[in-house]
């Protein structure tokens, strides 16, 4: 968008004042040198390979990278290679640069104890150039505002039952209107009768009629009975439960905007029974560098630092002695007599996290999306097909394979292989 803006600005060049011409020309020249495709590629590569330790403009685990090319060039040529070429060597495998005793590399190594990864085989020379292009000009093409999806996620949830409510109000309004109209016509009939001189016995009001009272009582009994049973069935269920958490962590930002894979943090969902709440060292993989968030600034991230004992000033775990784990409020609870295994569903069953947890990537504050009731589990087990053909485990189910072949069944659901039996979940 900004690029377009500059393009338009350049079209309007002739119409502006001389001062503007100079300013705009300056910007145009600066940006004209940057190939956007290469820059974008560099950005992507930087995010996936370097961002865990480096920030273009700020010191993190590794140094700020803006100006690195110039600094290395300043190191001078050595063994027939320029500074920039030595930088390539360093990025590929920093040991080579140090072992070759390139002075700047040796100085870098001695000033920073942290070891850098080796990227030989991961990054090609062109990739490194693109990354360097990006880090030197990281602010060249500012990204569009990122808040849109997050905001959308928040509103979708609150507006959910609005149409239902207005419909009820409208129907209620109609009923009241009808009642008033009936009252008015009755009264008019009465007046006409009085004028005509017909004397009628005073009418029993409809709500005093026995038939009506019996009907109302019956309706009430049925309704109350239904409500009680329904309430009893839902006792202990927490669909929609959305507690406040000690840190205002936003899944919309992390999983939505930044598209971090769910299992980057909740990695044991793939391996075992529980999906872990990430330990703080997982947070610190990124938050050593990212100390400011888009919404709450440093306030919420500071809570992580306090919990893990990180001193942002010295960038060390100086306060590790006072570290204290974060007490998250657990949202998804199952009764003790239910055994649920994440890896069974995520790994063996290839079920998406969102199938049960809902659109977490749009949730600023997570809530329980599904009822987690037994009926809900069973329904899914009846409808969901297992990885029958693709998973070798099922190759021993000879009869079912035969049935599929003979077309006596058309699909193999969890239920077909016994997935609705008691001791699949209760033991």
């Amino acid at each position, binding site marked *: 968008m900004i690029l377009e803006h500059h393009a338009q600005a350049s079209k309007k060049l002739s119409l502006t004042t001389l001062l503007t011409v100079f300013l705009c020309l300056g910007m145009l020249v600066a940006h004209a040198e940057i190939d956007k495709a290469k820059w974008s590629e560099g950005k992507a590569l930087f995010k996936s390979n370097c961002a865990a330790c480096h920030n273009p403009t700020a010191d993190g685990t590794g140094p700020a990278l803006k100006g690195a090319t110039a600094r290395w060039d300043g190191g001078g040529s050595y063994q027939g290679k320029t500074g920039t070429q030595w930088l390539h060597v360093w990025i590929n495998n920093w040991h080579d640069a140090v072992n070759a005793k390139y002075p700047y590399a040796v100085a870098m190594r001695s000033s920073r104890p942290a070891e850098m990864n080796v990227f030989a085989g991961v990054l090609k020379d062109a990739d490194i150039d693109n990354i360097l292009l990006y880090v030197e000009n990281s602010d060249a093409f500012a990204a569009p505002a990122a808040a849109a999806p997050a905001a959308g996620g928040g509103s979708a949830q609150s507006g959910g039952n609005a149409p239902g409510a207005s419909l009820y109000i409208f129907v209620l309004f109609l009923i009241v209107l009808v009642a008033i109209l009936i009252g008015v016509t009755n009264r008019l009939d009465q007046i006409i009768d009085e004028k005509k001189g017909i004397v009628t016995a005073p009418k029993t009001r409809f709500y005093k009629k026995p038939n009506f009272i019996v009907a109302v009582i019956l309706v009430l009994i049925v309704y109350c009975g239904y409500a009680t049973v329904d309430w009893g069935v839902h*006792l*202990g269920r*927490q669909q929609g*439960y959305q*507690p406040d958490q000690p840190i205002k962590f936003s899944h919309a930002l992390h999983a939505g905007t930044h598209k971090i894979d769910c299992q980057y943090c909740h*990695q*044991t969902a793939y*391996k*075992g*029974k*529980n999906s*872990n*709440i*990430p*330990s*703080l*060292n*997982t947070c610190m993989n990124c938050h050593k560098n990212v100390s400011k968030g888009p919404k709450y600034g440093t306030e919420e991230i500071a809570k992580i630092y306090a*919990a*893990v*004992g990180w001193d942002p000033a010295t960038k060390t775990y100086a306060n590790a002695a006072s*570290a*204290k*784990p*974060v*007490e*998250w*409020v*657990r949202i998804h*609870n199952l*009764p*003790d*007599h239910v*055994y649920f*295994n*994440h*890896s*069974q569903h995520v*790994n*063996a069953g290839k079920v998406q996290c969102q199938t049960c947890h809902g659109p977490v990537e749009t949730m600023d504050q997570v809530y329980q999306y599904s009822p987690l009731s037994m009926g809900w589990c069973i329904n899914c087990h009846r409808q969901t097909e297992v990885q029958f053909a693709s*998973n*070798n*485990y*099922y*190759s*021993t*189910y*000879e*009869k*079912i394979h035969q049935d599929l072949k003979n077309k006596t069944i058309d699909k193999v659901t969890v239920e077909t*292989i*016994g997935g609705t*039996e*008691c*001791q*699949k979940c*209760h*033991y």
Partner: protein
Amino acid sequence: MSEVPLLISIHLSNNDQHKAMAEKIYWKGIEEKEQSEGFRQLAEKEFRDELPVLSSITEPISTGNSNRRDFLKMLGFSVTAAAIAASCEMPVRKSIPYIWRPEEIAPGIANFYATTFYEGGDYCAVLVKTREGRPIKVEGRNLKNARVTKGGTNARAQASVLSLYDGARFKGPKRGKENVSWDTADKEIGDKLKAAAAAGKVVLFSSTIISPSTKAVIEEYGKSIGESKFEHLVYDGISYSGILDANEKSFGKRLIPSYNFAKAKVIVGVGADFLGTWLSPVEFSADYAINRRVSDDKKDMSRHIHIESVPTITGYKSDTRIAVKPSDELNAIVDLYNVIVAGGSAKNDKVGKAAKELLAAKGESLVVSGSNDTNAQLLVNAINNALGNYGTTITWDRPYNTKQGSDKAITSLIEGLNAGTTKAVLFYESNPVYTSPVKGLAEALKKADVTVSFANRQDETSLATTYVTPDNHWLESWNDAEPKAGIFNTTQPTITKLFDTRPFQETLLKWAGKEGSYYDFIQKYWESNIATKAEHGGLFWSFWDLAVADGEVEIPATGVASYKAEGASDAVSAVSATASSLGSDFQVKFYESIAIGDGYWADNPWLQELPDPVSKITWDNYIIASPKWLVKNGYNFDGDFKEKRYIVGKLTANGQTVELPVVGVPGTPDGTFGIAVGYGREGIANPELRNGKGVFQFLAAAKDGNFSNIAKATLDKTDKNEQLAITQTHFNITMKDLGGIKTRKIVKETTLHEYKKDSNAGNEDRKEILENMVTLYDKHEYPGPHWTMVVDLNTCTGCGACVVACNAENNVPVVGKDQVRRSREMHWMRIDRYYTGEVDNPDVVFQPLMCQHCDNAPCENVCPVAATNHSSEGLNQMAYNRCIGTRYCANNCPYKVRRFNWYDYQQADAFDKKWGTDNNRPLSETTLEMHEPLTRMVLNPDVTVRSRGVMEKCSFCVQRLQGGKLEAKKANRVLTGLKLAEDGTVKEYGDIHTACQTACPTNAITFGDRNNKESEVTKMFQDERAFGVIEEIHTMPNVLYLTQVRNREEEKHYEVIDYYHPKA
């Protein structure tokens, strides 16, 4: 019911008698054999106890316990409770992740660590399962890394994890009753030890130590105070002094050689319970089983003759059991010696015959004796030497380190204290105040300047010492072990220490003025002493890491010893003299029970509640006597059946007396009494675990200075009686018709002779049973796996390891003595012990019985809420949350394997624990202990903790089935099953094993998928020995048993029940 019981003889008609001739009659207890009044009354009942609800209905309101007011109270309470429960919001639950998650720990995924169990004199190579950093289960290590115990475990190793969470453990160091800090303790004890060393001697008193590093630490400490000022005394409660002293004379080494039961064709045991308690029972069971397995390919097995007085599982397992008095165990050894070594004749024909069989199997035979008499063991050495067994079935290449104690240590300690030369005593892994047969230790300890106990739980000795500096539990410790020469094991911690305790070795190093952790010390020791001798890549670190990961390394065996016939000829007269000094009347033998050992395990509720394999009694010790003698002398044999009240006898021996209930155990010869040591531990904090009486004081030093566990005795009847929680006739399935025993096909056995002729021997009727099966029900379909189990009755020794393993795996609660007595024990599997033949010396069959997962399960049809039903994998499922507790299923189960939760034994409900009490019958203290958060840490998080009022039973370890299947699915492969080697040992483990299967030291239990044609169970299902228990009722059980085969000449054993009547 309360008067002296009357023996009812059953008059069989001629027809019945004929039938009895044709078929063996099995019985679980004498009360059943004799069909005592109490037994029959109870058998008539639908439920053992009256239903409490009936009294409130039948009794008039004026006198009844419940009335309208109670009804209104209950109504009011339930309405209020419902209202409160409803108005409460759901509790807020927290999820607290690690700050730094250790790489190997993922919540919900179990970790296994190879480590080494050595507690109370028992060694076992184990894997410990931890969940979220908590050890919850002990398993045997795989064969490759368990060279001694071969992957098996025993009940004690299985139960040891519970002791970790014992609330009675010391929370920190103590001076008397006062808690002190480690700094204070170190300073005060350090000063006092220095002063004591200046004035006299410092003694370290311990049980056998098999850790080479610990021994090095002790040496360091000894050096630090001067070697002349320090003495290390080793004493074991269960003494092996006799055999050690004998070996010193015969071989010049005070050690015990390796016994190889797998190579022995003829085994003669004389009072040595080598399958249960003697020396290295887990190893011996595994080896013994190799030669006991038979199949169509190998129709041969070892011959086992056992000569013993007090019955043990080893005797019960033998082919020929010769029941003798304790003194005759000695005479039998003399007889064997006379025939085998001296070439003479035997006084006893049966023993003489055994000797001839041994001679016929020279070099492939084995004689072992459990006697603590040095001379008797000298004779045994001479016998084995004459049989050429040294070098074949007995080898000196890797002698045992697990028994090194000397009985003289205890006298030496007391003498030193009384003489004033010993000024300080340190007690490590030893409780001599309880286990000492010599009195006066506690008083003598008062004369020392300082006494310290390193015990981690309160015991008699720690109560008598001035300081307690508690050691870590073994699951919290680094250590090493050398159970046999050249086989080194590592012990690694599986949890951070729970309390303010410190490893014994670290404490000792500190007192020796050496800083540094014991872990560093072990590593240094291994680097300079073990790594140098072992084969490895050259880097110590990789060697050490591998050793810790595997748990075991081996260095080449070097031991040699040659036999000298020194003292053997004199021993004959000495042993005969000892035997005749015991007289010909009554004798008592003090034996070690499988569960409790020398008393070390008395504070473990799982072991207390494990029914003794022989007597089936829990929670107590008692006097074992011959049933015939018992009845003749007016004792009751069935404990007034329901009440289980046994008449108390006063036993006098060696000038000591003890009063204990007298119990008749079939197979006990006339004139023999037996009492288990290890009970009556007054030092245990929980009074319920002090049950029974201590009898160590009965052991008297013989001429060789070793304590003899047999003595001349008299037994006087008292007018007291005592309740015993005996389970032998609980959940009885042997009889169907009242008034007579009707044979049911429960256990089947044959002899090797018959088996060689026909693989079907003993199991001939099965064909007919299978042919005649008709059913109205539809057959279940099993599209995937069909889980089944096979138990080989030939190799099951009844040791009980599986029962405790099941408790640990499946959160089976401890219910306490009173509840067990009421037939409410919750064990998912029981080991039924069937007698057949004469009361004096019956044949015995052990049969582990768990839910049989019938294809036609009678329990499933009667559940009104379908809480128990059939799965597509052949499981008989039990949904606890659906169960409403009608108990119809238990009543309809022909195997009686269902258990009902009469109380909330493990606090499954959120309500207060006092809810577990009613009718002034509170839950036992021990059960309430299981409600404590600390003890509940032992629970398996994958298994529901059952609440009050629901039924439960064996699930075939469904959590393991599901887990194993999931691993296969994740790896995108088919399930792998167990693979057995040709000799029946485990060749390769598969994905799924049940807890009982892995615990079994003899691999008697095999589990697998019957739909897999290649699986071991499928092969076993086709074995002609396979049969189902009472399958004639067409339950189609998924647990099959393999016929027991006895290797003896006698043809098929037809016999009429030998009824005997009390003779006036």
